[in-house]
């Protein structure tokens, strides 16, 4: 019972590690430039503080997943890990929702504020950012599932045995 629990949590953490790592890397390597009329449009992830926050948050989550994968044998810090998982899940959901909000404006614009969409001018940048956002979304969902599983696995001795 303990072994299956350990295997499933390790698998989930590996999945989350892969997702956060790919989100960070894809966002960092996204850049594109275009020449429209006389203006030079160059788009990098550093142009927007939201995407910088996204990269930092995913990098923190990657480092945390890596550290926890390597110390999952001791049971003394396991309670702290459960609580830190909740904090990291909160961080991941906040970074993905902020980046989604800004990316939605970049794709559709906001006519009320007079903001034009930029995806027409820099399509490669938009595709890269979309990929990074999908990876980040998967990472957030995996961390939520991991939290639910941890809470369920902690509680299973509480459930009474059915006769």
């Amino acid at each position, binding site marked *: 019972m303990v072994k299956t629990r350990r295997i499933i949590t390790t698998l989930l953490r590996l999945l989350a590690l892969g997702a956060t790592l790919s989100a960070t890397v894809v966002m960092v390597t996204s850049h594109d430039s275009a020449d429209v009329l006389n203006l030079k449009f160059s788009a990098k992830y550093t142009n927007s503080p*939201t995407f910088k926050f996204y990269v930092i948050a995913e990098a923190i989550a990657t480092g945390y997943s890596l550290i926890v994968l390597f110390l999952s044998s001791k049971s003394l810090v396991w309670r702290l890990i459960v609580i830190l998982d909740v904090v990291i899940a909160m961080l991941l959901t906040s970074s993905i929702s902020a980046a989604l909000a800004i990316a939605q404006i970049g794709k559709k614009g906001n006519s009320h504020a007079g903001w034009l969409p930029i995806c027409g001018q820099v399509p490669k940048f938009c595709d890269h950012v979309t990929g990074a956002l999908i990876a980040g979304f998967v990472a957030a969902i995996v961390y939520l599932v991991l939290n639910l599983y941890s809470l369920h696995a902690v509680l299973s001795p509480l459930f009474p045995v059915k006769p």
Partner: protein
Amino acid sequence: MAPQSGTEKPMFGYGSISCKAKSRWSWTMVGLRLLAFLATAAAAVVMLLNKQTKTFVIATVGTTPVNLTLTAKFQHTPAFVFFVVANGLASIHNLLMVMVDLFGSKVDYKGLRFAMIAILDMLNVALVSGGANAAAFMAELGKNGNSHARWDKICDRFGRFCDRGGGALIASFVALALMLIISVISIVKVLKSNK
């Protein structure tokens, strides 16, 4: 688990904590939840009623000025709509938890009560944090604009809209901190009652 005939040891568990300990510890939780409910409700309501109309003079034809009336509403931005929805749902959750804490100490289903409270608290922390952060970065975009994407800032023209949105954001971040503390306490309760 019937108590033994001699002494009755107090165990951790909602029904069997002695009256003195229950009043100190769980009144703190009820107070925190009440504060979180007020903060999320305030954030949702302030953002819901956030609207500013302003008339601009954009040209002068002869001697008559040509006016243009623009309105800034929260519905124009999907991030603010999500902010209102998330804070509304979280305030409903907090209210429900306060009711359960005050009036529902007899309600239990196979020991699932701690589990459901901890899980729901965690889900609502994620929800509120998503809404608050999306709205915060959207507000930062409205305040500073983005020169690389040629997006102008709007806070210099709609100052009151921005101020009210900022107030709602502050309330939501306070609620987020409170709900994180509440969620950690709920999880610690679950872990303790398991040992």
